């Protein structure tokens, strides 16, 4: 897969770097190190410079995404409604910093500038589910819904979702 993604770009042409990185991210969900190493050799650019570009732009990820992506709104309205506390609560509950993915790859924690749901601030969003007017106390309850299903309950198709 890596070969195909990279091979469609001309050899030794550094100017294709950003579209190439975007394609790699589309194919893998993030930028794996071995694929970037291969890409570096292909376009004739040091890996250190590619790493520099990949870390400069927010759109690129260097770690795989978790199964569930938690977005914490840190926009103005949510900030006024104490979203900093919500973020801190999530960081503590998951032992993650924004941008990180849990070891079991179940959760990725992210911060966004404004989710566009200011009327229910403070708001977090897990995958496509929105949780508005939440408090730190509710965090554990919400996260529980996304914990991996225990083996005996595999027959349950998907956890219930409150919108």
């Amino acid at each position, binding site marked *: 897969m890596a070969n195909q993604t990279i091979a469609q770009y001309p050899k030794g042409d550094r100017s294709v770097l950003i579209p190439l990185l975007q394609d790699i991210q589309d194919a893998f969900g993030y930028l794996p*190190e071995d694929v*970037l190493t291969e890409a570096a050799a292909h376009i004739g*650019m*040091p*890996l*250190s*410079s*590619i*790493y*520099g570009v990949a*870390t*400069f732009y927010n759109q690129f990820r*260097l770690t795989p995404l978790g199964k569930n992506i938690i977005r914490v709104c840190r926009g103005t309205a949510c900030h006024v409604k104490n979203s900093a506390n919500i973020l801190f609560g999530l960081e503590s509950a998951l032992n993650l910093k924004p941008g990180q993915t849990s070891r079991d790859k179940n959760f990725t924690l992210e911060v966004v500038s404004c989710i566009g749901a200011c009327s229910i601030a403070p708001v977090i969003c897990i995958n496509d589910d929105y949780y508005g007017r939440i408090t730190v106390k509710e965090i554990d309850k919400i996260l529980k819904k996304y914990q991996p299903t225990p083996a005996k309950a595999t027959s349950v198709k998907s956890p219930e979702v409150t919108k």
Partner: protein
Amino acid sequence: MVELTINNLKVKAEEGMTILEAAKSVGISVPTLCYMKNLFPTGACRMCVVEVTGQRNLLPSCAFPVTEGMVVETNSPRVRRARKTIVELLVENHPQDCLICVRNKNCELQDLAERYAVREHRFAGEKRKHVVDISSPAMERDPAKCILCGRCVRVCNEIQKIGAIDFSGRGFASIVTTPYNKGLNVSDCILCGQCIIACPTAALRERSSTKIVSTALGNKNKFVVAQIAPAVRATLGEEFRMPAGTDVTGKLVSGLRRLGFKKVFDTNFAADLTIIEEANELVQRVVNNQPLPMFTSCCPGWVKFAEMNYPEIIPNLSSCKSPHEMEGAILKSYFAKKMGLDPRDIFVVSIMPCTVKKFESERPELGHDALHDVDSVLTTRELVRFFNMAGIDFSDLPDEEFDNPLGESTGAAAIFGTSGGVMEAAIRTAYYTITGQNLDNVEIDEIRGMEGVKSATLTMGELEVKVAVVNGIGNVRPLIDEINAGTSPYHFIEVMACPGGCINGGGQPIHQNLDNVMKRVRALYEIDKKSVTRRSHDNEAIKTLYKEFLKEPGSHTAHTLLHTHYHDRSGK
């Protein structure tokens, strides 16, 4: 020509010159941080800003070309204020541990803080926190001290063409680092140390061995000996305010004796030995149809580069150990026996112009009977600290002679420290090995000088020998591509990783002055010129060594002690 006014002075400048260059040509100093002579300006640091009449903003003089009638102020209150703010911002995001910093009193940030009279903490914000990368045996990387001028990145990318480090992240999180912020030891870094020479602060520095050496010197059971590389004698004086290119060999010897070294030997002796073995290896390769061209292997940065990037040319690398490793091997065998010493009690310290030599000395294959040939490597800069600590006034030291028998050398060995020197020395002896006669004119001008790639064709009897000299690792790739394509015309290629050779090595005194490098080079050629013997095979001590111990070049003993092998480090 363009005429402009700088600080009320009429200045004539060439068209295309920058304001900075024009100011410099009339002795007006403008401070810089990111500026690097001969490289395209980045204008990143804004230290060099000047006021130009008619321009709304201050202009970066390093990047702005002169125009006719331009009126420039390099030291107006507005300029001073802007520069001071830049320094203040840099200082506030810096550890400010000058008292315990290795670059104390030799730091560009410290100098600028003094020059612009930074006397208070005006910006008390958050500071970056970074850990020091001590993963490599030769170099340390301390991003907390980095001011992001980018000079190391440019040396690594544009001059050495390695690209081991680059900027990553953005804004406050910006940092110069390796891919994935890993240790230098697992990066593409060859540890040449050119970035250390380029760094204005102590963000990049050598891994210090002073503690180990100091402990060894204090150990009564150790017979601690020193050996001095060819290039150190022509540079160390600079650290004691002597002009660049002062030959301080005699003072170095007496100084090292005063530090407590039992014997002081000359790596030049082993350089002569290297030449005998290498010339013999070259002739054997030609006669036996073995891989050609042969590459020199004196430069451990080059060897590491080849192992990591071009493992397919490992058979082309000369199997000869580098001179200081040969010297160590002879010290722990021939010399130990002669002196009745247990090789385990001998502690060999190499004084080197080089950071990679530290890595090289730890290579497990460079040793014998579970002993390293060389126990510790000090760079020129570290030795200076030793002298200072001992309170030795270097300039007042008397001149003394090296100890024998590993202290005798020829002019051919002296020039090992400069690009083209190893090749020139090898040619002098190879000519003799092939034709049985001595070369009349021993100076080979085609391979001297600072060009990136130098080449020469020499007639040796019936043989026509083509040689090339690669000056700086950044110029080596095209020659390797030629070999891989089967079109290389050469028999013998010298590679030195640092531009100019060891004389400009990563362990040398830190001065941002290219003219100094030329003066250092001339000093080495001067030593050669003044030498009584200028051909390695005329070294009497070497002749005795072969007669008493090694028998002949390439003998079994020579192979065991003086030759080595290499590893594929490409990870492919």
